[in-house]
């Protein structure tokens, strides 16, 4: 029995970036949870002002090292929409591959290095024992999967961090045939390891169920990360032409206390949302391999985000292999747009959820203003509500140390990214 206490986690570990948490409990009821992103603001949306449009994707990539390639693609789409450029089919295929490389590497980093130690009762993934048959295999699997994702990113985008090839109007370089062959072999080779990873998280004893609203960018035909409409679990569909309206609905509240609610309620973005809303669109080979696993969705269990990420790794592999095997890549000139007064919006599914970029251009092609809305910002209210419920559930039986451990585990399941979240100009900290 605790009755009254204040709990502060100075800095969460095994997450991207820096965040802290403050909880106030009175009479065993949670009075407030403050999930605080403690990264220092670097004022990217302010720094956009006056820059030439061509400089924007590389600048905004520096919002976050982890999600940099998602920021580049969201920014490119926003700039292209403002300049009136329609990317070619080949460009869209290369962008899909860029996101597949990112998701393979980034999900593997989160699943093995951040989330898995909790399941095995270890402090760090590197504490796993190489000589133990299970732990040794997982160590190998982790770095093989990450390396394959890295190889794909480097081949298609030039770099896995702050990619060099994707540009406004197309790609500066196209992948060569010999490297494509190696990429296919590497991706095929890690499939068994990914299937083992799916099982680890399917068998995980961690669960936390609380119903919420789910939201994701869902493509028309094939599960992916770069185009589609915004769908919600309430059955809403926000088409591309209404992105502005949708964006405002999300953006406007965030200079107030109720930031990032959608129609007055918290919502969740990320792999769980995508899987809940779009599992039918996964690659046929992924669906065949993971038929039983996919029956777990839709789900309201936050820890199933981890399982959803494992499924997304396999889908990324299977669809990347299909694209690489079937498409002939030809050199294409970058498409040129027209400098004009216009607003452009770009939306992608970053590994952690829906990422919005908006840019307002002046007649001379320089930036008047812009806006970036990141997944972790959108999940913030939902995380606070989940933590409040979790703490109230745990209070009667658990020690403070146990409560802290459980909170960190739950927040980790969201795979939050504080580097992204800290670029904001307007954040209400109360």
């Amino acid at each position, binding site marked *: 029995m605790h009755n009254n206490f204040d709990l502060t986690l100075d800095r969460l570990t095994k997450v991207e970036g820096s965040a802290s948490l403050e909880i106030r409990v009175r009479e065993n009821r949670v009075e407030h949870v403050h999930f605080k992103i403690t990264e220092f603001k670097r*004022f990217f949306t302010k720094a956009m002002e006056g820059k030439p449009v061509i400089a924007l994707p590389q600048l905004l990539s520096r919002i976050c090292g982890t999600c940099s390639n998602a920021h580049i693609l969201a920014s490119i789409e926003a700039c292209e929409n403002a300049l009136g450029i329609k990317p070619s089919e080949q460009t869209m295929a290369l962008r899909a591959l860029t996101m597949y490389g990112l998701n393979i590497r980034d999900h593997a980093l989160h699943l093995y290095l951040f989330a898995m130690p909790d399941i095995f009762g270890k402090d*760090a993934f590197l504490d796993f024992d190489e000589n133990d048959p299970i732990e040794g295999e997982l160590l190998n699997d982790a*770095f093989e999967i990450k390396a394959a994702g890295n190889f794909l990113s480097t081949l298609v985008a030039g770099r896995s961090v702050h990619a060099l090839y994707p540009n406004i109007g197309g790609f500066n370089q196209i992948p060569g045939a010999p490297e494509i062959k190696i990429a296919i072999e590497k991706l095929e080779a890690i499939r068994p390891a990914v299937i083992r990873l799916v099982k680890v998280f399917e068998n995980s004893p961690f669960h936390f169920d609380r119903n919420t609203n789910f939201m994701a960018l869902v493509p028309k035909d094939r599960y992916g990360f770069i185009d589609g409409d915004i769908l919600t679990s309430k059955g809403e569909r926000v088409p591309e032409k209404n992105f502005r309206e949708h964006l405002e609905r999300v953006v406007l509240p965030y200079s107030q206390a109720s930031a990032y609610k959608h129609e007055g309620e918290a919502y969740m973005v990320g792999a769980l949302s995508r899987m809940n809303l779009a599992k039918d669109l996964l690659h046929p080979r992924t669906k065949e391999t993971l038929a039983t696993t996919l029956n777990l969705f839709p789900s309201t269990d936050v820890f199933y985000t981890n399982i959803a990420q494992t499924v997304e790794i396999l889908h990324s592999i299977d669809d990347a292999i299909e694209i690489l095997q079937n498409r002939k890549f030809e050199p294409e000139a970058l498409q040129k747009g027209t400098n004009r007064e216009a607003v452009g919006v770009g939306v992608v599914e970053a590994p952690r959820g829906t990422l919005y970029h908006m840019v307002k251009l002046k007649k001379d092609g320089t930036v008047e203003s812009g806006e970036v809305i990141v997944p972790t910002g959108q999940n913030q209210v939902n995380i606070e509500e989940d933590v409040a419920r979790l703490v109230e559930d745990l209070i009667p039986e658990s020690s403070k140390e146990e409560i802290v451990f459980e909170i960190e585990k739950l927040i980790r399941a969201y795979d939050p990214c504080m580097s992204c979240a800290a670029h904001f100009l307007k954040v209400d900290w109360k």
Partner: protein
Amino acid sequence: MAENDLEKPKIKVGWFSFSCCEDNTVVFTELMNDHWRDWKKLFDFRHARVLKSQNILDELDVAFIEGAIASDQQAERLRQIREKSKKLVAVGACAVVGMPAGQRNYFSEGQKREIEFLTARFAALPKVLKVFEVVKVDAEVGGCPMDGNKFLEAVNGLVSELQNIK
């Protein structure tokens, strides 16, 4: 790396992130894909929040610092790390040249006025600092993100030096 290097006492390493996008952390975890076996034997990661929860700031052989310094509190923390570390390496552009984390240093007067209330609220320094402006730096690995090969060169150099001392 010679076989007998792996039998020597582990090198105590810390990885610290200040104001930045943590792209060097990602490059570091990518380099691990090829080097994790050696690093597991060679390094005792005493403090690396991206890798572990039980982090200890005690005597370190090498501290890697990414990010620029945006507040007095961060500067104080960096000085503590320096005191406890035999070698301190600044990694990535934000640590080495202060950019782009320090882009507000170059804002127009009007832009500065618009962000003033935020820098005041979070007790941020009037000017974002490079790591060497706060503490002595023994080695630098530049780049945005840091160059992986240069990082490995720096690491290998420090390992030889430290193992000769030990």
